[in-house]
Structures are given as structure tokens and as C-alpha cells.
């Protein structure tokens, strides 16, 4: 996994925190929308944007990954999308 700060490191140094998702506004959304956000996931394979953390340096970043082939396409720090 190429960490945007530390370069290419062993995958065992990282934790995957799941797909990036946008939270609905809890004050205005319906109960069903909120339950959908809390529980449901995009479970099919595809190219996904995920939160990852390089644990030794506590570097949080975003990885674009093909979950069918287990191939990392690119990574970047939050707010610095190339």
C-alpha cells in the first residue's frame, strides 16, 4: 500500500476504515434514510474510495482501490486529491 507520506509499506501496517460515505443530515432526514446510512453498505465489488490509516505514523488518507482485483489505484491525503 503506497502511503502518501511514508511511501510503499507492507499492508500489515495499515487498517482499512471502510468506504467513504456522506452522512445525511440527522435533523432533516427520515428514520429510514438514517437506518440506511447506519447499516447498509455498497457490498458489490468495484472501484471504491476508502479511508485507510498507516498505524505506525497515524497517517489517515484516502485510497482508491479495485475491490475485485485487490489493486490500489492511487492514494492521497484528505483534501489533496490529485
Amino acid at each position: 500500500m503506497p502511503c502518501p507520506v511514508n511511501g510503499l509499506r507492507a499492508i500489515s501496517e495499515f487498517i482499512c476504515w471502510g468506504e467513504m460515505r456522506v452522512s445525511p443530515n440527522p435533523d432533516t432526514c427520515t428514520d429510514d434514510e438514517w437506518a440506511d446510512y447506519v447499516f447498509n453498505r455498497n457490498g458489490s465489488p468495484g472501484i471504491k474510495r476508502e479511508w485507510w490509516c498507516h498505524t505506525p505514523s497515524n497517517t489517515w488518507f484516502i485510497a482508491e482501490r479495485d475491490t475485485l482485483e485487490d489493486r490500489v489505484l492511487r492514494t492521497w491525503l484528505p483534501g489533496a486529491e490529485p
Partner: protein
Amino acid sequence: MFTTPTELKSEYDVVIIGAGGHGLAAAYYLARDHGITRVAVLEKGYIGGGNTGRNTTIIRSNYLTPEGVKFYDASVNLWQDLSEDLDLNLFYSTRGHFTLAHTDSAVRTMRWRAEVNKHYGVDSELVGPDFIKRACPSIDISCGGHAPILGALYHAPGAIARHDAVAWGYGRGACNRGVEIHQQTAVTGIEVKAGKVTGVHTTRGTIATSKVLCAVAGFTPRVTDMVGIRTPLYIHPLQAMVSEPMKPWLDQIFVSGSLHIYISQSARGELVMGASLDPYEVHSTRSTLDFTETLSAHMLDMFPFLSHVKVNRQWSGMADMTPDFAPIMGMTPVEGFYLDAGWGTWGFKATPVCGKTMAWTVANNQPHELITGFSLDRFRNYSLTGEKGAASVGH
């Protein structure tokens, strides 16, 4: 063993997607118990080639929730007569199942599980290190000093069985009663009109049907996408491996949540070993060296004398995980679309009871009483069935 039907008919009463143990068991009980024989089981690969042939074959009912304990215990009862029922030797072998506790909090969970189990009539008790050492003298009870074993949940009916034979037995039984099993037939779409299932598109043509049962484990999200149903399922690989065969020395099944391992010895003498899930989503059955190394290191903590033993094979299956570690079974918002999914790392042992309850559910178009706690609805109502504490290893 099977008749291979030459062509797909244009219409069936029920279409089952997935010819694994679960799908074939459902077909068998639909035909045997409900007289529904105009059934097609569609399989994109071959019979039992998915998680039915990739699991570590452990059968037990010492779960944590009342819903789980009753459900899995009904399964164990079916297992015990299944070889006779299917007229095929499944090598069902009662071994005794130890879930080891290395920490005080694990002991507390074991005590909790033992009490729930006993309440529902399941043979399950908390035992100490002496009992474990007597049962299996080869075990290092201190685990090399890293993680001394403080006790275990002992479940005497814990068993293993020959997994392939389960798929073959159910498949043959269903076939003999008129069910058609179509291998090499992938589902490419499901037709839904006005909220009801009307047909299935396959790589070999279109079928009209009003009832579809989806039993495809790690492929479930791809099928639920076809009918527009959202689920909490996420797919992680679960790996396993076997050693070279050796003389029988391990009678029991050992599981350690803290060391993330489980082990039993098969009738062939191979040690069958598994560990926890791979830590991130992958939709393939690739194997990794990381897995072999970590599992072997932990195995040597428990059984140091295995250090010279060679690993023969390793493989992986795609586990469809749920957030509460309980399955998703029954009806869905799409009429005529039934789900048998969320089998994550715990599906093999449930094969008979899943077949039986899903067949009942499909035949009667209402959820069987044993599976009401596993409905997809629970993720809308926040009424989860928390089974994580009874998962074989900490995931």
C-alpha cells in the same frame, strides 16, 4: 450421482440461485416436505464449489443469543440423522468442541454462553485448564507463556463432517425428486414488475418464475443489486489451510478467539486450520502468505510439536459478513424474492436447518418461526441479533 438436465425450461415454480449446501438443501426440503418439485437450482460454477467446499466443517450450537441457540441446535439435531436421511456417508464425527479462554473477559463470555446454552437444553459447560489438558495431553496449556489458557467453553456435541458430501447428498436427494440442477448457468438479471418477481435472466436464456431464493454467500450483494435491495453485507475473504496427513492425535476441535485460530483433524489425518477474516474487503478467493505465517505462529503457541509439519494446501472463500454476526434470512421488500445470506464465517453448520426453514418460508410465503430473528427488517428497526460473542474467533 446426478442427472444433468439438457435444457432450461421456460418456467419453474421456484428458482434457487446457488447450488451450494444451502441452495441444494432448500431444494431437497421443498421437494420432500412440501411437494414442490418444479424447481431449478442455478449454479454459475459447479456443485458445492463455493463456501460449502471451502469451510472448516465445524458443527456446533453453543451460540450466544436465544434465537441463535435454538436455530443452530435444530441444525445439530438434523445433522445427527443426515447420513441416513440422504443415504450417503457424510463422515459426521462428534468430537467435542473447546472454545478456549485466555483472558478474564473471555471466561466471562464463556460463562454467559454456557448459561444461555443450558437454558435451551444444549450440552455446554465451562471447564478449567486441568480438564482441557486431560482431554488433549499434547496442548501447551500456557501457550508458550504468551497467553495461558484459563478455561474453555466445552460443547460435547461439537462435530465435523465431510463438506463436499453434504452438497452431493442434498443434490442427489433433490434430483431424485424431480428438481433440476443447472451448473455452468449464471444469473444475469432478475425481472421485477410492480414489486413482484416475474422472471430470471441467465446465460442460457430467460425463465419465468414468481419465486426466487438467493443462496449465494459472497456473491449476495451482486444479486441483491439486481432487485434493488440494499443490505449491510460486506465481503471479506476467509482463508484456511490443511497440513500433511498424520496419525490421529487430535480427537477434539479447538478454537481460540484470542489466538484467532481453530483446528481439527480430518478423517484423512490432515489438520484442518482456519483463522480470522482478512482485514479488508476483497471479492476474490486469493490466498496470502501473511495468513499462513500468522496462523502457523499461533498454532505453534498451542501445539509446539507441530513445528516440523508441512502445510499442504491453502485456499480462501468469500464471507458475506453482517454487522451483528447473525444471518439474514427470509422475506424481502420484493415479493417472491427470498434471501438466505449473511452466512459470513458460520454457514456450514446451519446447512440442514437453513434448507428446512427456507423451504418452509418459500412454500408458505411467510418466515419460519425459527428465523424471525434473522429478518432483513432488523436493520431498519435497530433490533439486531448480537451474535459476535459466539463467533468462532475474534474478527
